[in-house]
């Protein structure tokens, strides 16, 4: 095993400082705000990280309930439970809440908790900004959810809110939706600035960029993506706002505008956005796989370069969401080639993980199970992505359930499984207790079965011709939909086990030492478990260490 742990003297120093830190913590909080104010006013990266994670978890359940309404209606052909108007609100809100409310804040929460610990920093670079970024989110999503109770209902035009359906034909609540997305966008940009500032300025002495854990690297790149594209989203929704309320015609053909411009702008944001939701997942899996294979990651440097390549390519592929919009042949070809290219760095990542497993010494604790499932199912999602890149075939796949299957494979057993894996992996550090293995295994197997029952049949219904976003369907799709619905409910209900694991783990369980997993590397495992409120007030000195990564 690579000697990646800091040398003994560093370890002693850091545990000494953290013991001192615990003593200081007592002083700090003596007379500090208590009760609700403690959480409202906190500037501590661990507390804010916890807030982000709890917020994300609650959004995951709310968005999940919306998905189950959709799946319940689609259990059988015909309209049984909801009207088409409400069905459209459910698909829209499910997408918006999951993307902006569940997956993105979960990664920011993990970044808040782990990045300072992984780079040996005492906190985030901008702690007050950190507090502000978090508390914008409940405002944004409170506003978004309140549209469900407004006259005309919530947004009903899909999470991609194509004009003119969302502008000239949208419900009155569209303006609230725009405002809430603006607020969530500001939160993301501020969070990204904070993460970049922390990583670039607050690494422990001696930690070079190429010594950083991959979770830090992937987040650094993700944060730059966020800063690059969130303003584009802000721009496009501001143009919508103008079209709706101030008489402009950016997207209204009747006034000389261009509905296709909307799609270009949206996807110029939207495609990097998909990578924003997967790159940190790569980082998590790249931490877990070596830890439980007890073997260093096969190619650290190539993983960093692959992540950077994916990020750069993400700005050059947005038109693959628009292949049937009626663009010139040259544009279709260019974007087909760039999209296919993404398979190369993505392949490099998968090959690296698999090679890391080869000749390891492997155990299958819950974090590892979720990480392994991630590799398999993310790869399946990658394959369908490659199929979708082939433009002629995309004329058949586009806007069918095949696409729904594809992006759910990369987002649910992809991003969401990675987040869950990260939670199981770092829970001992957060709570001082190991998560319950038996419950964890149940959670894992039920999730795997549920997710595959839900999304695998969607490949078939899509290929057979079922369009997405329909509340009722032709009879030949009935069996696949019934299976999907059953799977959806299995997956949804089994997430309650995750809650049980979390509660149990916070309350007690087997005590975890500082280095909770024997194969785990990185600085976070040098501080006690649970991590005291203040860590690394004196940074660990890594200058005397031999090069770690390669």
């Amino acid at each position: 095993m690579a000697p990646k742990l800091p040398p003994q003297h560093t370890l002693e120093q850091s545990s000494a400082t953290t013991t001192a830190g615990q003593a200081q913590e007592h002083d700090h909080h003596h007379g500090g705000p208590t009760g609700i104010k403690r959480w409202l006013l906190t500037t501590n990266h661990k507390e804010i990280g916890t807030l982000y994670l709890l917020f994300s978890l609650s959004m995951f359940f709310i968005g999940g309930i919306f998905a189950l309404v959709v799946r319940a209606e689609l259990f059988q052909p015909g309209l049984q439970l909801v009207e088409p108007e409400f069905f459209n609100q459910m698909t829209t809100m499910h997408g918006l809440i999951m993307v902006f409310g569940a997956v993105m804040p979960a990664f920011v929460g993990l970044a808040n908790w782990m990045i300072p610990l992984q780079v040996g920093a005492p906190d985030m670079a901008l702690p007050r900004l950190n507090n502000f970024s978090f508390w914008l989110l409940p405002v944004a999503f409170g506003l978004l959810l309140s549209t469900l109770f407004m006259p005309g209902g919530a947004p009903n035009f899909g999470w991609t809110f194509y004009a003119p359906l969302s502008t000239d034909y949208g419900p009155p609540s569209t303006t609230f939706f725009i405002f809430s997305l603006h607020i969530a966008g500001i939160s993301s940009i501020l969070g990204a600035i904070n993460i970049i500032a922390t990583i670039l300025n607050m690494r422990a002495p001696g930690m070079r960029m190429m010594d950083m854990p991959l979770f830090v690297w992937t987040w650094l790149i993700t944060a730059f993506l966020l800063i690059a594209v969130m303003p584009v989203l802000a721009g496009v929704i501001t143009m919508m706002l103008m079209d709706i309320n101030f008489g402009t015609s950016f997207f209204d053909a009747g006034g000389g505008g261009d509905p296709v411009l909307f799609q270009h702008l949206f996807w110029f944001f939207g495609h990097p956005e998909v990578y924003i939701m997967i790159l940190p997942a790569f980082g998590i899996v790249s931490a877990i796989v070596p830890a439980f294979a007890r073997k260093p990651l096969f190619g650290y440097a190539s993983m960093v370069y692959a992540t950077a390549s994916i990020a750069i390519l993400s700005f050059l592929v947005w038109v693959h969401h628009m292949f049937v919009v009626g663009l010139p042949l040259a544009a279709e070809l260019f974007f087909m080639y760039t999209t296919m290219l993404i398979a190369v760095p993505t392949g490099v990542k998968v090959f690296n993980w698999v090679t890391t497993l080869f000749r390891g010494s492997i155990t299958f604790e819950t974090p590892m199970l979720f990480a392994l499932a991630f590799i398999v199912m993310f790869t399946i999602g990658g394959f369908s992505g490659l199929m979708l890149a082939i433009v002629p075939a995309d004329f058949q796949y586009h806007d069918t359930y095949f696409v729904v299957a594809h992006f759910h494979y990369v987002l649910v057993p992809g991003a969401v499984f990675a987040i869950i894996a990260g939670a199981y992996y770092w829970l001992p550090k957060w709570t001082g207790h190991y998560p319950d293995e038996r419950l964890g295994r149940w959670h894992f197997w039920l999730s795997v079965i549920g997710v595959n029952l839900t999304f695998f049949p969607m490949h078939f219904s899509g290929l057979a011709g079922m369009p997405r976003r329909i509340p009722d369907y032709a009879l030949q799709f009935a069996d696949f939909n019934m299976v999907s619905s059953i799977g959806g409910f299995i997956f949804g209900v089994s997430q309650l086990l995750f809650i049980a694991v979390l509660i149990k783990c916070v309350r007690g369980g087997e005590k975890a030492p500082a280095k909770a997993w024997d194969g785990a590397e990185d600085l976070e495992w040098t501080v006690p478990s649970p991590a005291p409120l203040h860590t690394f007030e004196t940074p660990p000195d890594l200058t005397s260490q031999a090069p770690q990564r390669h």
Partner: protein
Amino acid sequence: MRMVLAWVTGMGAAFLLAPAVYANGWNMPVGVTEISQDIYSLHMAIFWICVVIGVVVFAVMFYSLFRYRRSQGAKADNFHENTTVEVLWTTIPLLILVGMALPATATLQKMYDPSGADLDVMVTGQQWRWHYEYLDEDISFTSSMSTPGTQIRGEEERADEYLLDVDNPLVLPVDQKVRFLLTSDDVIHSWWVPDLAVKQDAIPGFVNENWVRIEEPGIYRGQCTELCGKDHAFMPVVVHAMEQDDYEEWLADRKEEAEAEANSVDREWEMDELMERGEQVYGSVCATCHQDDGSGSGEFPALAGNEEMLDDVDWHIDAVVNGVSGTPMAAFGGNLNAVELASVITYERNAWDNDTGDVVQPSEIQELLE
């Protein structure tokens, strides 16, 4: 570990069995055009490439998981980084991709050549129906879903063509190159028939192009594939492909009907005639929003007992012909002819106990349209 194996075997069996159970309707249709067959071949080629790569990668992965278990005493190796391996697993995928891109490019170039069309059809998406116009033949009509609400609500047994049947299918000749020009009157729709491998967005303010040369007579069904509002699920596409002779016969009948209708504009129409025609037009064009019984739904007002409409016949005519601004009510003056407009307005003024006794003559409307 045994569970992993059980899972892998179980999933594998399920995936292999699925095709057997669903001999029809689990894969992309091969279709009835050269392009659709090319696309199907591309689809299967890329699929099998993915399967092969997947089998190799997952085989190595599951072998490692099985072979190098710590519980079986595996000791971890420490190797990492190997330039040869890394160059190989970057270049080999690249070559496979180039191999895939070549046929895809060739097919796409074929698809992008609509030149030399024998027939041009303008396809206009409207919430929630399609309007077809044969550009050189002076024929146009609206095509709406004909599946009744009773089937959707489960009050009646669902037909085989549930949600995929229309009142007026698009009729096309086989072995002729048909060019589609697609646009929309309101939001973005997308016109798709899987068997023809034609899917093209219909966008307001744009005219998109696509084309088809159907090789076999038959009835081909598809749906709108771009979310276009509440009845997105209920705007099917049905194409009836006929031999040239049958097509010409159909064309002649259609023309005759159109001519007869045009000639009948000037004559005095009886109430009963107008009501009968009006009910037909209403069912095809108006009922999706205002409902069969005129009771309305959501933002679409009830027409039964609607005072604004019943008190003022001129307002009513204006609303139907020119639309109502600030509401979803579209202008139908361009899509329906004078007879259709007059009859549907008469129908709305007298159906469902509205009983105004008003008769709106096609000639009145014709004047207005001119």
